[in-house]
């Protein structure tokens, strides 16, 4: 189940906002579709990222895929643990498998994102 307290982007990423900090990761659906993740190319701290643009790049045994940022901001932290153990994303996409924390400029950006139930409906539509 996709957690209720997160917002979802159509490119299968999630964001959790607390104050100016936005934690971003990929959804369970995304990790499932990608299969075993073998590498993630993490952004560098202080990099400016635009909403709907690439935040990181993931390589799985099946594909290489962009992690699309749901919001705009500046990279505050990246999950360094993923460099050594990218499989954490498969195991806990909503927990220890977070990708990066951005300092966001515009909190209203998240209003355009989906909530958990909207995202689930979106997944059903996509599967059709």
């Amino acid at each position: 189940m996709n957690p209720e307290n997160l917002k979802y982007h159509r490119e299968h990423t999630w964001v959790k906002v607390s104050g100016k900090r936005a934690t971003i990761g990929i959804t369970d659906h995304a990790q499932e579709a990608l299969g075993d993740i073998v590498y993630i190319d993490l952004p560098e701290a202080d990099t400016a990222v635009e909403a709907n643009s690439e935040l990181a790049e993931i390589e799985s045994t099946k594909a290489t895929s962009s992690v699309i940022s749901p919001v705009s901001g500046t990279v505050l932290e990246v999950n360094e643990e993923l460099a050594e153990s990218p499989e954490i994303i498969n195991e806990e996409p909503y927990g220890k498998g977070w990708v990066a924390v951005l300092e966001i400029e515009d909190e209203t950006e998240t209003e355009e994102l989906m909530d958990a139930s909207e995202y689930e409906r979106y997944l059903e539509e996509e599967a059709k």
Partner: protein
Amino acid sequence: MRVAVIGGGPGGYVAALKAAQLGAQVAVVEQSEVGGTCLNLGCIPTKTLIASAEALRTAKGLADYGIELNGSVSPNLSKIMERKDRVVSIQVKGIRALFKSWGVTLVEGRGTLVSPGRIRVEKREGSEETIEAEKIVLATGSRPARIPKFSFDGKNILSSDDVITMKEIPSSLLIVGAGVIGCEFACLFSEFGVRVLMVETMGRALSTEDAGVSELLEREFKKKGITLMTGVDVTRVEIGEDGVHAYISDGREVVTEKILVSVGRTFNTENIGLEALGIERGKRGEVIVNEKMETVVKGVYAVGDVTGGMLLAHKASQEGVVAAHNACGRDMTMDYGVIPSAVFTSPEISSVGLREHQVQEKGMPYRTGGFLYRALGRAHAAGQLTGFFKIIADPGNDRILGAHFMGAHASDLVHEVAVAMKAGLKAVDVADTIHVHPTFSEGIREAFGDLHGEAIHVPKK
């Protein structure tokens, strides 16, 4: 017919053998060793060193294959270099034996053109000799280009020639120039545990390759811990107690044990008598030849690096074949239409034909097809997932415009496309050809299939 060749590298020695095979009496003048840069300082020694690096990588990753290693693995540079010298020596002997077999005379010394039919040789032991020949082939090659601000010193600021004979593995290395040579050495040294940094003035590594290749290579560099700085230059270098300080144009300063300068190559056109004969040179100093590989002076041909263009051993050899035919009274022209090339990075890169940006610059209509190594069963079996196949074709007549591969065995795989292009086949001809399963070559078929949306092992779009 008497033919004399100055320079015994892949251009010159092939010209000599071909001329001898066509019945000529042939002499080759070589100042150092037959095989030239390719065999003694370039292609072969580097590939031998890369084989050692690959062996080390395989050993370090044995656990992934279910093999237990009870002990440790580490590179021993003097033994690696010994192996390299042995490999080179075998190849050198091979060329010398072929010379003997075909009756080619090897004159060891430095040759200079005196007049259209005459070469003066300062022999290695000190004496002089004049060689007379009706036809002459210049194949003097090239050498590493230096940067005047910090020229090679053989100790701290190295050329690729110096690296080939290195005695100790440095702890860190700054490579100036992320072209073919720089990128190959970066992969090699990082495998040996060297901290590698690179500086490139262009916006990306391997800027003459397809952009897709550079993108994946740069990601692989990140994985290996190679730091690549693009769009910048080294403005100044200082040798300090703690290593070589390089000042980067963006204000950064990096300190490494050694610097390798790999910013291109300079043509060996000095003091070989070009001026005496009035042989024309181009803007970059290259010897100008026509499609028969003949210079403006009748009966004097030039082949290989010294003629500029792509600095590739196999291009030089083909030019040597063309020059030899023409020197021996046959009629042959050089066809540059299909020349595959490879970069022996880890993983390998290969290409033939046009890059996507070149197709765009020409304003040609085009379509691309692609396939990933990781979608191949063989790639998983071999544990070599990284890489892609990319094909560019004309959507109108379905002719193949170019192919760009990156991944395991890419340097060998490219020839299937080279043959198809040379034969003028359509993309669909390759897509319709059954390929062996399970092989890496299946990816080529799928990439050709993808051009027409007919690849099998791809998710529904």
